[in-house]
């Protein structure tokens, strides 16, 4: 009787120490689920979901405060993986956003007055320029978030759809086999 009590007490102590050690030494800073959800988002940082960037939206999603059909650039593919990751039901993207065309910002350099307002608006530092100097967009780094468009006082920023080239072209999906009944 005493032996079993002692054994159990000893086991409890050992496991308690182990758990205590683990909770201190293997502690994960922040919410790993937020990181995971953030990695699923397209990182456009466009704010079309109503949050100031992809990570704030990821946090809101994990906390259950946001709907999962708000990411416009991600579209239905992102909604599907978000639904799977968060164990929630997928919803279609609202109709007003359905026609999203991936674009890149272009500054019409002849019109630019060098006000730096777009530089301040760009969430990924993809615009270079200085006060009263012409600005330009580093196209490889532009996410097409459109945040630089409204601040421009001279309307010199165009959003142009990304042109397909042989490097980014994808093979079309073959038409499914003819279905025959009987």
């Amino acid at each position, binding site marked *: 009787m005493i032996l079993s009590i002692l054994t159990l007490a000893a086991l409890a102590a050992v496991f308690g120490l182990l758990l205590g050690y683990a909770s201190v030494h293997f502690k994960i800073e922040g919410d790993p689920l937020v990181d995971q959800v*953030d*990695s699923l*988002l*397209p*990182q*456009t*940082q466009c704010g079309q979901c109503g949050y100031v*960037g*992809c*990570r704030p939206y990821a946090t809101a999603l994990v906390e259950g405060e946001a709907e999962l059909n708000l990411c416009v650039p991600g579209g239905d593919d992102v909604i599907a993986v978000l639904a799977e990751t968060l164990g929630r039901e997928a919803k279609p993207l609202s109709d007003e956003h359905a026609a999203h065309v991936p674009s890149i910002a272009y500054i019409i350099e002849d019109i630019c007055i060098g006000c730096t307002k777009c530089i301040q608006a760009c*969430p*990924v*530092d*993809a615009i270079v320029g200085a006060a009263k100097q012409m600005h330009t967009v580093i196209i490889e*780094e532009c*996410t097409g978030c459109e945040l630089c468009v409204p601040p421009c006082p001279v309307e010199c920023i165009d959003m142009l759809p990304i042109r*397909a*080239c*042989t*490097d*980014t*072209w*994808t*093979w*079309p*999906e*073959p*038409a*499914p*086999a*003819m*279905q*025959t009944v009987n």
Partner: protein
Amino acid sequence: MGKLYTFPGGIHLADHKSVSTQSDIRQSAIPERLFVPLDQHIGPAAECVVSKGDSVLKGQMIGRVSEFISAPVHAPTSGTVIDIQKFPAAHASALPSDVVIIEPDGKDEWQQRSPLASYEKMDPSELRNIIRCAGIVGLGGAAFPTYIKMNPVGHNIGALILNGAECEPWITCDDMLMRTHPGDIIEGAKIMRHALQATRVIIAIEDNKPQAVASLRSYEGEYEWLEVQEIPTSYPTGGEKQLIRILTGRDVPSQGLPLDLDLVVQNVATAAAVHYAINNLQPLISRIITVTGPGVKSPCNIEALIGTPMSDLIELAGGYTDDADRLIMGGPMMGITLKTDATPVIKATNCLLVQTPESQRDASATRACIRCGECVKVCPMRLLPQQLYWYSRSRNFDQLQRHNLFDCIECGCCAEVCPSHIPLVQYYRFGKSEIWKKEQESTKAGLARQRTEARQERAERIKAERKAKHAKAKAAKAAAGDDKQTEIKAAVARSKAKKAEQQSATEKL
């Protein structure tokens, strides 16, 4: 003669090769205009170094490279650059890509060329650099820059395999080259062997090309390192991995390279191009193309300048028959359908095949998969074509990768034997390109995330710095304020003392 092995799967196809080997290689005249694309190889396009109005000489570099996997482009003849335009590429997408349009002056004048030292005196790295600068890419159809494969990166190369299998039906350009220019191939083999420091060179040729075998065998006695190996005809023996399997019985690891087995495989035409570059100082500006198929009147092989419009070659081959229907670049198994014959010949153009409606499958004949398993039996890569088909259809890209989709060589054996006529290879190409696209997107997203985080960090740092600066200024101001008060007090005290002094002075008077 070495022992031969077999590879799993594969099929026997009607080869249709004799139709285009009846006449000698025809020379295509310099066309009125040459359309030289800057993107003719695997890797990023070359960067244009000429502009409109420039005159160029034959062999002059018109596109240079800045990336590792890329190849320069040269002017095929002398003339004037009349424009640099977007033109439909010789690519399945037919998307426009940059093309340098040259109007030949008819003089065909070479640029200044100074002879090189003998290749034997050159360092392998020097040879690699010349091969790179000559714009040589794999001429079997893949157009991978050759100089990269010429770097043994620490491996002791046991054998350089020259691939003369040419296993796809209809194509005979390598066959004709081996029959008519065996010496060029041997010269190229010598240079490549020296550059790779390879022990042996094996030239592998399918046994349906006896004349090619005979013409190369005549050199076998001259060089003890040379071996001409006749291999049984089967499709796809010309696949790099299948050829290695036949010759050595060993398998290249999944997603690996022949280099992992201390082997290098190059096409026979590539070897000849290396010889022209080093011994004749001629960059890759022309190649042999088979123009064949039931849709051309007089099938033949043609040597043409890179940039010649394909319609010129068709004309040289007697023109189209009345029922010509489809133009394919490459063979019937792995070739790509072209939208227009105005497309220029590129380095990768080994064959132009013109099909008629009878010679190809009717796309509407596709039926549902009956799970017969024929595709599994013929797959030379030992994959599960049927599983890949289902996963590709359901867009299950994770499972596609788990089932080694990227080991698929797109040989088309599975689609050929499919009784339901399912375009299986199209499903695999679709799956591969979707996975690549997703990878590109996730790389871009990663970069954007990094930049956003850096930007936020910077904003916070600037805010903190500004706050610290304000606090410092405030403290300085406060300290300065104290000083002023004491100064005022001191001044007051001084004036009081002065006043008292004056008062006492007047009192004394």
